């Protein structure tokens, strides 16, 4: 499954550790949420980066005490239509100030890329290679957004007010990304 990180298809440096399997020394790992919560002190004291997969029906706020020691949080999309993790992503980014890798995993298609990016995800485990390759195209489809979002793109309201302040019509300008 191709991984798109910050807009580029990259190798996944993380190893998935399932259930109670041993955690390999020195490797960046992603562990299940239950395993992490049971063993958080030990897992976060390792030398290597630690990440976890957080289910979409559990309050992401529970992670607050550990956020400064987590290198990655993966949120799940069991299917295209299940949007709970969008709320979790925004809460992690905006409320709890999590700045490290936020990964979308599950049923990820190109038509979600823009929503995911704007909700605060910066890495995506994409189902189809063709979709991953089309990331830039999918993300560049829109230049206009009505809402403030986690990725900080300029929004319509600010552009309008700037235009009013300048006293003229807005010219199509490249967005600050």
């Amino acid at each position, binding site marked *: 499954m191709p991984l798109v990180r910050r807009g580029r298809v990259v190798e996944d440096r993380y190893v998935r550790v399932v259930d109670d399997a041993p955690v390999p020394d020195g490797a960046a790992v992603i562990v299940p949420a239950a395993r992490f919560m049971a063993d958080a002190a030990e897992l976060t004291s390792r030398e290597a980066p630690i990440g976890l997969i957080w289910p979409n029906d559990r309050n992401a706020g529970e992670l607050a005490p550990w956020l400064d020691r987590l290198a990655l949080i993966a949120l799940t999309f069991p299917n295209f239509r299940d949007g709970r993790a969008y709320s979790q992503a925004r809460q992690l980014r905006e409320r709890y100030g999590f700045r490290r890798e936020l990964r979308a995993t599950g049923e990820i*298609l190109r038509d979600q890329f823009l929503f995911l990016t704007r909700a605060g995800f910066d890495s995506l485990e994409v189902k189809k290679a063709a979709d991953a390759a089309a990331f830039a195209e999918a993300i560049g489809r829109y230049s*206009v957004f009505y809402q403030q979002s986690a990725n900080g793109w300029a929004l319509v309201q600010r552009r309008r007010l700037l235009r009013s302040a300048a006293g003229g019509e807005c010219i199509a300008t490249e967005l600050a990304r």
Partner: protein
Amino acid sequence: MYLYDELDRTLVAERVAEFRDQVARRLSGELTEEEFKPLRLMNGVYLQLHAYMLRIAIPYGTLSSAQMRMLAHVARRYDRNFGHFTTRQNIQFNWIKLEELPQAMADLASVGLHGMQTSGNCVRNITTDQWAGVAPDEIEDPRIWAEVLRQHLTMHPEFSFLPRKFKIALTAAAHDRAAVKVHDVGLRLHRNGAGETGFEVMVGGGLGRTPFIAKTIKPFLAKRDLLSYVEAILRVYNSFGRRDNIYKARIKILVHDLGAEAFAKEVEVEWRQIKDGPLALDPAVVDDIAARFRYPAYERLEDSPPALAAARGSDRGFDAWLANSVANHKVDGYAIVTLSLKPEGGPPGDATAEQMEAIADLADRYSFGEIRVGHEQNLVLPHVAQRDLARLWRALDASGLATPNVGLVSDIISCPGLDYCSLANTRSIPVAQEISRRFRDRDLARDLGPLHINISGCINACGHHHVGHIGILGVEKNNEEFFQITIGGRADEDAALGTLIGPAVRYADVADVVEDIVATYLELREDPQESFLHTVDRTGIEPFRERVYATR
């Protein structure tokens, strides 16, 4: 009118380009139908019984004459020469080919129309009073707030994959013409004790198989907090709404299961954390949106001008129409004119391309180029000078748009039913057509007074049968169409669900049953001023039940 600026136009154009690409990927087989489905739904494209259906949003029910002409063009070029106005200020085209959809959307986009978020599990078209901005009983124009919400909730990164669809309606008038209490969120602009205007927030209303009237969770919300509070509601719903059962996924079920108070508490906790952040509305942003609503340059005119006085009494048809379809305007010398899309024997809400063009021309001539669409599936010319009423009536009459039955027994709200819809269990349009033929006598209809009949061809309740004064619900039993009849429902500020009067009746009997109910009302009412609803309130359903089932 709200005038799109280049940013609004850019977004719609980008959406069309994206959809063109999605259709191409579907046609090439790169996307499966299952993968394509949520994408087409977010653009208002359904797969119906016979063809794809395209639903176009008419935000807060306001259309320009140029937009109406484009709808006529789409009806003619891509459909079978007509369109169907729905109960949520949308229009549907029923016979569009998938390959032609992107071009139809591009044509619509050229006048700022689109199908974004008219279906799918997202925030749908935000609706309001079709008389917004002209109604004498409103405290301010609710469309500004509908537009603030529309923009904020368009392609929202968090709320585009909700458990189920989400409908918001607003009213700012004493009389609720937007049915806000049967919406997922209903907002009522009103003035508090200190004289400030703000919103009463109601949540969890809805019809479908489990109907509820919305409950108030915030009696007064300051305007600056509108977006943060709506986001808090949506976030609680997105996180906790059920996703395991499509029939229990609407917010009304969550509100019911938690209880309105507990739900309100969850929202409050979430809201406290975001209310003073970036979502707090900047008055400059609201002013900027309000500034793009353009109002007509009304002339200074007197009420009841000589031209109108002279026309009165000259033609019975004109007098009947004037009494029925013309309402007071907040500006002296003007009137609000409703155009009935319920001709005798016609499918409710349908308009042909020729009618749409005629309406666009009349709007240019008599209504500052503006048209409105209401949830009762009728159209409105909102700014007609009273001196022009007689001329307008003659033109409307010639186009079959002056049936004087607005709010009366034959002004039936109906879903498309089995003639089009893949969900329907029974027909509903033919039921409406038959009832409208039975009540073709205009004197009788006028004598009956306000009487709303609503018909749904299945439990999904798109015809809002629960809130019809007489509600008709089609159900299937052993491969035969049956109809349950309720009475006493209403969708206004005193919204209530109708009561079932007895066992379901056969298709062939529905119009007879309606006649029996009407006859019972005529016998029971204390005087001609006592409305059907008042009579039902006073007597209960028993006398109606007795009459209907005495011989069945």
